[in-house]
């Protein structure tokens, strides 16, 4: 292709600065000049790393990490791996990821598929408390940063509800973005739902039925302790901690039906923000803490509304459809993702708050509970299909759905850690 032929000399010239580029975030490839086209990267099988030590084939790990970043299109070798380096270019790769193990050290590099020049190289020694798999994720994030100038997201953590394959109650788990390393948060045998990270990523708010009723808890991920922050008559649910960490927005029904409240986590002061007989749920803070999005069926079906944290300046955001729920603010605060019931089933949609323009992100149906990636470039959600519920990520540019979890149990209501 002429595009590649034209760029290769540039890549070769940039070779001399690759080390500086990796640290200074000067991109090797200027993705802003490539419109929506992703970088085609050859990802082989990395045969010096075994599936046993990594947990899954090492090439699959790196290919997923690069693809989920939204910047790369992995080219995989298929049945017959390329016998010669030149075969990668014939597969359509512009660059090639190379990973091998030398002693305990992981050596990762990226080479230009046309010239063979090394564009990036870094060593990841053992002994820093990082597993081989974690080092593969770090390599993938470094490749994204070095080649595009944008931070990778492969090491971010997720939380969600999980039902194990043998069945039972939902419980809150944390997991890696590639669906591995699933850990139960509390180990309790009680129904747990609706986890959300605090904005600083250091705690998870969720609802547990361990008292026999739904109560809101804040679980400290550093200390491993938890506080019950709401246990009033009826429903206590949907906790979301404010960006400054001082308040929690939540749904209580102590006054007779589900309404939106805030509770000051220091003083315990509780403010009721809505007052009507309709169903209110799912309050979520805007990133600047000046607005709350929530769901209300006060006009008939459930719709997305926004208000300020005093309950004033109330405005309906979704104007079409009869069922719009589960709002989540984009990290820049300009858009809200939500779940819409349409003629083709439940889909994830995004509404631009300035223009009210609506974009439908998914097309398969059964898609619920969207949340934004920390870089705002993709959306994570759960999808019910064929008796299974898994997490998927869709990049907003490519609109390609990548499955995160692998059907080992049911995964739902995800949230994406705002920090790595």
């Amino acid at each position, binding site marked *: 292709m002429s595009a590649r032929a034209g760029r290769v000399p540039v890549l070769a010239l940039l070779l001399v600065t690759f080390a500086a580029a990796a640290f200074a975030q000067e991109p090797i490839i200027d993705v802003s000049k490539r419109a929506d086209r992703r970088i085609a990267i050859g990802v082989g099988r990395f045969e010096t790393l075994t599936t046993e030590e990594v947990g899954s084939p090492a090439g699959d790990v790196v290919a997923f990490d690069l693809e989920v970043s939204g910047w790369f299109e992995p080219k995989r070798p298929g049945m017959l791996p390329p016998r010669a380096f030149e075969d990668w270019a014939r597969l359509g790769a512009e660059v090639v990821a190379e990973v091998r193990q030398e002693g305990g050290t992981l050596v990762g590099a990226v080479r230009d598929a046309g010239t063979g020049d090394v564009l990036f190289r870094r060593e990841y020694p053992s002994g820093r408390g990082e597993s081989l798999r974690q080092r593969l994720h770090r390599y993938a994030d470094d490749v994204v940063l070095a080649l595009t100038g944008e931070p990778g997201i492969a090491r971010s953590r997720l939380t969600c509800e999980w039902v194990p394959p043998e069945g039972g109650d939902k419980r809150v788990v944390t997991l890696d973005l590639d669906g591995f390393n699933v850990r139960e948060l509390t180990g309790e045998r009680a129904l747990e739902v*609706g986890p959300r990270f605090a904005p600083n990523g250091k705690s998870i708010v969720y*609802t547990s039925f361990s008292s*026999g*009723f*739904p109560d809101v808890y804040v679980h400290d991920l550093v200390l491993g302790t938890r506080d019950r922050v709401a246990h*009033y008559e009826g429903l206590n649910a949907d906790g979301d901690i404010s960006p400054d960490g001082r308040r929690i927005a939540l749904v209580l029904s102590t006054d007779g039906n589900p309404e939106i409240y805030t509770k000051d986590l220091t003083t315990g002061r509780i403010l009721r923000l*809505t007052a009507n*007989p309709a169903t209110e749920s799912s309050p979520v803070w805007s990133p600047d803490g000046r607005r709350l999005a929530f769901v209300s069926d006060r006009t008939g079906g*459930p719709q997305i509304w926004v208000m300020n944290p005093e309950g004033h300046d109330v405005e309906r955001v979704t104007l079409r459809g009869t*069922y719009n729920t589960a709002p989540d603010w984009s990290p820049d605060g300009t858009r809200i993702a939500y779940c819409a019931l349409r003629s083709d089933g439940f889909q994830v949609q995004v509404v631009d708050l300035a223009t009210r323009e609506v974009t439908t992100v998914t097309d398969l149906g059964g898609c619920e509970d969207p949340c934004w990636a920390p870089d705002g470039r993709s959306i994570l959600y759960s999808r019910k299909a064929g008796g299974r519920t898994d997490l998927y990520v869709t990049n907003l540019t490519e609109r390609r759905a990548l499955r995160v979890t692998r059907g080992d149990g049911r995964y739902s209501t995800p949230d994406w850690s705002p920090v790595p």
Partner: protein
Amino acid sequence: MSARFVWKGAAIAATLAVFVGCGGSAPEPETDVVEVDMPEEVPVEVTPPARDDTVKYVDPNVEYRETLQAIHFEFNKYRITSEAKPKLEAIGALLKDHPDWKVLVEGHCDERGTNEYNLALGEQRAQSTKRYLVSLGVRESRFQTVSYGEERPIDPRSNEQAWAKNRRAEFRVEAPGS
């Protein structure tokens, strides 16, 4: 510090018609005007008491199970249906015959829709069921409500028949004398 708000409109009435916040008379779901006592200003500072978690609710004894059967709801609705009213009247009479019983009303939803919203919808079903029984003369302090949203289906299948069974309110009791 409260004002009377009058809610109008068929769409609102369809979902909210059983809400009675101000009167002791039986709810009238066919009306298109709902009157509720509501605080006129938000935010309102509230100091709710902690929940009493000590009541040990159990499934009703066999002899009462036929009366204390589940009632069912329409999709995405929490108003009491005409089929449910005679069942609730029988339940109300039973509860008035056993004034020492405490009652847990559990609200449930079908699997469709988001889990968070279904948790609120299940609570609305439990609350509207409780309010109907209170309107029949059962003391409000005898009730507690819990919503399980879509987490406790009776029938795990994904079809209309299963969904209809799963949209329900159930009753559990603490019956000291029995």
